[in-house]
């Protein structure tokens, strides 16, 4: 019955097709815009929670329930500082901060606004810094926890967007692999720049600064290594400050 009314319309005329397409696109655009704006706050909370989880993971605090993450973060993080590559403090940040260093992303990082999370774990000061790089198929990122001497790695967390499951994806899934960063030195006396690196087993020379790569994921491992070199390199001034034994906090 409804067919009769519709048949009188010529559904193959150009005008009809253009009208149809226009109406359809506008309607769909409105629906999507509505859904997106309605769900945005919930999604943002999730993203923030995930970021906090990653920062805590770099301090070897794992396996928290979702509801405990925010409280633990507020407890552990003393300040989310922003510094520039000359180690000038741009923003002090605040306790359990979410507005300063926490709000930065990888493009701010490239512009030289560097986040440093000053944390207190078991009474000792630790720093957490973000690192951003490229894996084999897409972006990878992570957080490196640094001890109060500003040279020893306290913990590391890596994540990725699209590395191969079982190979490159191990940088995120293989906790034992992340654990081997613990205790490694970032800089080595007598060498320029960042010494911390990921290398093939056959090329392992100095276990105090080099980590074993992932078998079968050479390019992702190289990506991690390059990411550490580039990103920690920007923190060179910050890291050296304590090594020279002056301006201690």
């Amino acid at each position: 019955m409804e067919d009769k009314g519709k048949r009188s319309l010529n559904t193959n005329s150009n005008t009809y097709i253009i009208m149809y397409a226009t109406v359809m696109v506008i309607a769909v655009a409105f629906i999507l815009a509505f859904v997106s704006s309605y769900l945005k706050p919930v999604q943002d909370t999730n993203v923030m929670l995930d970021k906090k989880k990653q920062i805590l993971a770099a301090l070897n605090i794992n396996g928290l329930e979702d509801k405990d993450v925010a409280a633990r973060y507020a407890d552990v993080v003393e300040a989310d500082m922003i510094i520039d590559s000359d180690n000038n403090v741009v923003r002090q940040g605040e306790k359990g901060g979410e507005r300063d260093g926490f709000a930065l992303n990888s493009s701010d990082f490239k512009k030289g606004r560097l986040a440093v999370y000053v944390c207190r774990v078991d009474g000792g000061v630790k720093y957490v810094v973000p690192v951003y790089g490229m894996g084999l198929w897409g972006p990878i990122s992570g957080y490196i926890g640094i001890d109060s001497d500003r040279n020893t790695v306290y913990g590391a967390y890596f994540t990725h967007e699209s590395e191969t499951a079982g190979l490159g994806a191990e940088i995120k899934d293989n906790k034992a692999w992340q654990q081997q960063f613990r205790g490694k030195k970032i800089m080595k006396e007598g060498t320029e720049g960042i010494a911390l690196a990921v290398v093939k087993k056959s090329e392992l020379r100095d276990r105090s600064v080099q980590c074993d790569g992932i078998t079968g994921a050479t390019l992702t491992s190289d990506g991690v290594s390059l990411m550490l070199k580039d990103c920690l390199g920007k923190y060179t001034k910050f890291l050296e400050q304590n090594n020279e034994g002056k301006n201690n906090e």
Partner: protein
Amino acid sequence: MSKLFSKENKEVFRSPLSKDNPVLVQVLGICSALAVTSQLKPSIVMGLAVTIITAFANVIISLLRNTIPNRIRIIVQLVVVAALVTVVSQILKAYVYDVSVQLSVYVGLIITNCILMGRLEAFAMTNKVGPSFLDGLSNGIGYAYILVAVGGIRELFGRGTLLGYQVVPQCVYDAGYINNGMMTMPAMALILLGCIIWIHRAYFCNEDK
């Protein structure tokens, strides 16, 4: 309502579950089936997402079928599917964030899942709303239960867990059992899927129709 459960409609509902299963018989949607089934939870969510999207896309296209200009019908189908997929992926991001991270691009790739376009073009364009809904639902379920089966087997043997809970007891590990790392790789999903298709063809599917 009684019409919805007529004999033909029952057939529409039943055939994609076994005789005309989208994964086992038509071998559609394999790419996502291999990629997301390393654990049970993402398999279930992916199966659910595809079921919901196929059912609703079928309903919408079936409602519009007489108004859709023939020359741009594929585009219209794509827009409807893309809109639904975007909505579902937004909902996943809001309420099951960890799963949406695990599924990553594969939710978006539902848009290109052959099952959807196939059902829209082959069924919803020429059938009424009720049967179209059933057709979409059963094709989605036909896809989902294969995913869940493969995901369950892979998680059980690859990690010794189901839905993240340890199932294989510690004493078995102490006796020398180790998780099969091969199971966590996509290649193993292909082999498992092949075995399931083989069993299905050998025992449940009558080839000569």
